[in-house]
């Protein structure tokens, strides 16, 4: 039987290889009767005319492997891959699972070498800024395999807003912020020769080296010498290795010195005095941090006398609260104020605040619809709430609704089961519904009933605060 010669282009010629495989399989030509040659000037030798043939179904793993291995620089790659395809289609469908098979093993090593080269290209390309007013960057790189096209998308994903070019001996890639284009091979001279940040980078590289751990073998295993000439920092390597032993000896021989500066007693004392001492200081910290949930125009702080007997904790500011920067001024807040008045709790007795200090919402047309903070988000705000309580030092802490209970106790608890007196850490507490729940009820009868129950809770809250006053009992300090 004659030897069939298939010619492919230089580089990773996946397209021709695929087409050839389809035809070879259709013709039932076994690997020993096929020869693959790489040639840029086809037609010089007697080439096989590859006709269109139906697609071949091969396992996904095999086709992925082919995509990688065609990038390899070994001229034998196509022949090896064809042998693999042939065996897979002739009774060894699961061949890839036999990693110990000599052919699978060899192809796997080739794929690994390609992947490693890709990884190293992503790591070792060094851009230099090009001369000129516009910010443009270019790099010269010498990959081991034909990987330019496979490597380029990584740079697009990473440097999307940059204008960059990568030049290599096997081709070039240009990203103009909109489109990726591949061009002809280039030369080292086509790339800029320097960059103003390289010296600083080299200085950094020298400084992070620890001479007491010198191990050039480990370095070379991960950063083979062939890459060095295109990496500006590697110029420092010989010097670093040469002086390492001497530097370590000096450190070991040098006796411990006495500190030249005196102990900064006052700074040391002041260092631990960092806690906010007033609500104003705490609120300034909250304002500066910005929202820990998405949305919100501003932080909404607690409001009320500093040492109020009762602290009411709601969920989070609503639309109105967010715009005005004050808690409980929306519909639910108004209902709470009304109920407080009816049960004899004066605003001067109560401090009103929220578990979460920022409004979280979903925009629907012109309306901003309240969106419930997640448990994790509530916990983000918890340290502030705890500090707030510590500063107000109330006798009774009232949780309005489930979010407040979660914030105060750290645990999710259903209101229906826990309504009534409670303990939040060291604080005496009380659990009731959030006034917005009363607004959401569908019919008037239920609404009235629920409002009465809410008033009942507020009366007990009022009594509890009074009782505490009479016995002179003070809450324990916060944990």
């Amino acid at each position, binding site marked *: 039987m004659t030897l069939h010669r298939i010619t492919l282009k230089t580089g990773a010629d996946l397209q021709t290889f695929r087409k050839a495989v389809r035809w070879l399989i259709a013709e039932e030509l076994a690997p020993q009767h096929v020869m693959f040659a790489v040639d840029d000037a086809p037609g010089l030798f007697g080439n096989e005319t590859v006709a269109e043939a139906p697609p071949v179904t091969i396992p996904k793993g095999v086709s992925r492997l082919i995509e990688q291995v065609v990038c390899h620089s070994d001229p034998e790659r196509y022949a090896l891959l064809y042998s693999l395809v042939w065996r897979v289609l002739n009774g060894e469908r699961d061949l890839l*699972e*036999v*990693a*110990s*098979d000599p052919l699978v093993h060899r192809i796997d090593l080739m794929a690994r070498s390609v992947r490693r080269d890709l*990884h190293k290209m992503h790591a*070792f*390309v*060094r*851009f230099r800024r090009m001369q000129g007013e516009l910010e443009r960057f270019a790099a010269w790189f010498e990959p081991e395999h034909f990987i330019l096209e496979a490597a380029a998308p990584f740079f697009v994903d*990473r*440097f*999307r*807003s940059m204008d960059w070019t990568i030049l290599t001996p096997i081709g070039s890639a240009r990203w103009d912020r909109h489109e990726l284009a591949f061009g002809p091979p280039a030369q080292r001279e086509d790339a800029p020769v320097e*960059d*103003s*940040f390289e*010296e*600083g*980078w080299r*200085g*950094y*590289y*020298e*400084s*992070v*080296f*620890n001479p*007491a*751990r*010198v191990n*050039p073998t*480990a*370095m070379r*295993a*991960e950063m083979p010498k062939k890459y060095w000439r295109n*990496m500006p920092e590697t110029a420092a390597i010989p010097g*670093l*290795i040469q002086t390492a032993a001497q530097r*370590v000896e000096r*450190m*070991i021989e*040098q006796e*411990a*010195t006495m500190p030249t*500066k005196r102990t900064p007693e006052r*700074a040391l004392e002041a*260092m631990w005095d*960092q*806690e906010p001492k007033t609500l104003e200081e705490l609120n300034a910290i909250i304002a500066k*941090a910005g929202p*820990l949930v998405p949305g919100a125009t501003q932080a909404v702080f607690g409001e009320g006398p500093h040492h109020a007997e009762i602290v009411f904790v709601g969920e989070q500011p609503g639309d109105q609260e967010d715009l005005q920067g004050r808690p409980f001024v929306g519909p639910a807040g108004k209902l709470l104020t009304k109920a407080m008045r009816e049960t004899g709790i004066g605003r001067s007795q109560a401090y009103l605040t929220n578990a979460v200090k920022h409004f979280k919402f979903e925009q629907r047309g012109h309306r901003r619809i309240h969106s419930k903070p*997640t*448990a*994790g*988000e509530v*916990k*983000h*705000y918890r340290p*502030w709430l705890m500090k707030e309580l510590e500063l107000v030092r109330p006798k009774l802490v009232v949780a309005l609704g489930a979010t407040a209970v979660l914030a105060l106790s750290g645990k999710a608890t259903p209101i229906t089961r826990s309504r009534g007196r409670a303990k939040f850490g060291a604080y005496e507490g009380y659990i009731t519904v959030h006034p917005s729940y009363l607004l959401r009820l569908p019919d008037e009868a239920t609404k009235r009933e629920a409002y009465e129950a809410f008033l009942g809770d507020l009366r007990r809250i009022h009594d509890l605060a009074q009782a505490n006053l009479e016995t002179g009992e003070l809450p324990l300090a916060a944990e």
Partner: protein
Amino acid sequence: MDEKLSKKLRILADAAKYDASCSSSGAPKRKSDPDGLGSTVGTGICHAYTPDGRCVSLLKILLTNYCLFDCAYCVNRRSSNVKRAKFSVDEVVTLTVEFYKRNYIEGLFLSSGIIRSPDYTMEQMILVAKKLRRDHGFRGYIHLKTIPEASPWLIEEAGLWADRLSINLELPTEKSLEQLAPEKDGASIETAMEQMSERIEEAREERRHFSPAGQTTQMIVGADETTDADVLRKSATLYGHYAMKRVYYSAFSPIPDSSAILPLKSPPLMRENRLYQADWLLRYYGFDVDEIASSTEQGMLDLDVDPKLAWALKNRHRFPVDVNRADREMLLRVPGLGARAVDKIVVARKHTTLRLEDVARLTSGLKRAKPFLITADHHPKARLDKLDLRERLIEKPEQLSLFV
């Protein structure tokens, strides 16, 4: 880049280099926006290696090496006479962005000496991360060192901007901490670790961003008297309680202008290496910490052979293992067989019967595996019980010499 900034960079990179955790792994895959900069890939990338064999992945610097703390092992302790410097927030942002654009780094690893107060220091670090993310649309990797003495709300904020948070435990026991790091306190360190692990877990469930690459920590080895078994016990606790992504071990290394109360000697690199291997056994090979401890000598790992081999030599009655029959758990315990080799073996043997040359293609550790392994054409027989087996399996210490 102006010279003043270069000089600061040298000082503040030198001051940060004793922290071993430079990896940029574990972040969810991100791409840059059309106007932004930066991406993350799952495994991280090492952009260079220094002649100590360590990976340069992130711009690892301190915001400042002025410090009010006086930790004996630390080059930046307040009583040290090293050169001091301080970056402004904008300087760190500029360096990160410009280095990143040139593909030198995967992102930023920012730590700091304590100035003014833990809160002030932590706020400055958060500000850097915030500026990078908000003003520069930076989507590269950010690792922030958490200061456990800072107020808890700062941890809540830091995790929203960082990919990874970490607190270095540095010393495994409360006693050593008291002696060598008087300002630190093990309880507040672990409280902060717990806070971070809870928040990380919640955010993962709620699909929100909070330190998505988890948290890590570091322990210094060789600065105090703690045994390897106790170090590993501490690690097992940290992995178990706080879901640490990794515990780093850092051989205590002589530093310029070192403290009088610490040993001045070459760093115990082999010990560090063995701890990493043992750590691996805990996390990926199904060993528990008592099994590893039982194969140490008075709590110290054998420096001549790796911990898995040390365990196998003390448990010879459980070998040899038949590569064609044994279950995965037992194959993982064979010296010289890594987890990946074991996975390949388990799949391949469904289709074929493995011979010695087949196993040779799957692992580079065949020499160590051979006395413990049965293949279709090999049985170690009495060799497994020979007294000199350990001696014959000792690795040649060629790469371990300090100055080659």
